[in-house]
């Protein structure tokens, strides 16, 4: 596994953990189980921890050559996937409130930065998935 794969795997795991916890908290809040709003920071922090773990734990690959033409192609495709995901996210987030709340409804402006954070997570997740798909999910690489 190279550095990009390790980072991607960490990002996917932490993002899914954060998402899972977030869904649990939303369900608990829907059933009035006394979940304070501040508790929603926890899944965000967990989801975001992937980036911090990646920066601190995964140092650059050893060896003379750590990045070549294939890595360049994988990176380009992953960036494209991330951009595409954000594009879809923006489209979805532009129409979803109208569909759910109706044309006459209003939403608090505090949702704007939340949507921005969501776009960041969406980009990172799609990029990580694209990296893992292109490099292959398996740790074993069949090398000698």
């Amino acid at each position: 596994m190279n550095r990009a794969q390790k980072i991607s795997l960490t990002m996917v795991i932490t993002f899914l953990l954060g998402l899972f916890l977030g869904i649990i908290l939303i369900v608990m809040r829907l059933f009035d189980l006394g979940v304070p709003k501040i508790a929603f920071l926890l899944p965000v922090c967990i989801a975001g921890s992937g980036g911090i773990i990646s920066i601190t734990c995964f140092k650059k690959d050893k060896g003379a050559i750590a990045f070549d033409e294939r890595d360049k192609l994988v990176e380009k495709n992953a960036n494209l996937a991330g951009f595409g995901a954000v594009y879809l996210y923006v489209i979805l987030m532009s129409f979803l409130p109208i569909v759910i709340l109706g044309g006459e409804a209003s939403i608090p402006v505090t949702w704007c930065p939340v949507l921005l954070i969501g776009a960041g997570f969406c980009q990172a997740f799609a990029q990580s998935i694209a990296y893992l798909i292109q490099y292959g999910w398996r740790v074993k690489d069949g090398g000698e």
Partner: protein
Amino acid sequence: MAENNLSNKIRRLRFENGEMTQQQLADKVGVTRQTIIAIEAGKYAPSLPLAFRIARAFGVSVETVFEYVGKQS
């Protein structure tokens, strides 16, 4: 990455050239070992300069290392 229409004899050539390891070949042509693995497995089609470098590493022509197995146009 998508499968390509290239077949190659890198594995055989490595063994014919003093049982060269994937890492040794990778260092010789200036790529990572993972890329050599992907090329050998037919999961990645190398660029033309890389194909030439691989062929040169074995001292043979590109056609000896790679063969196009896709449909003729």
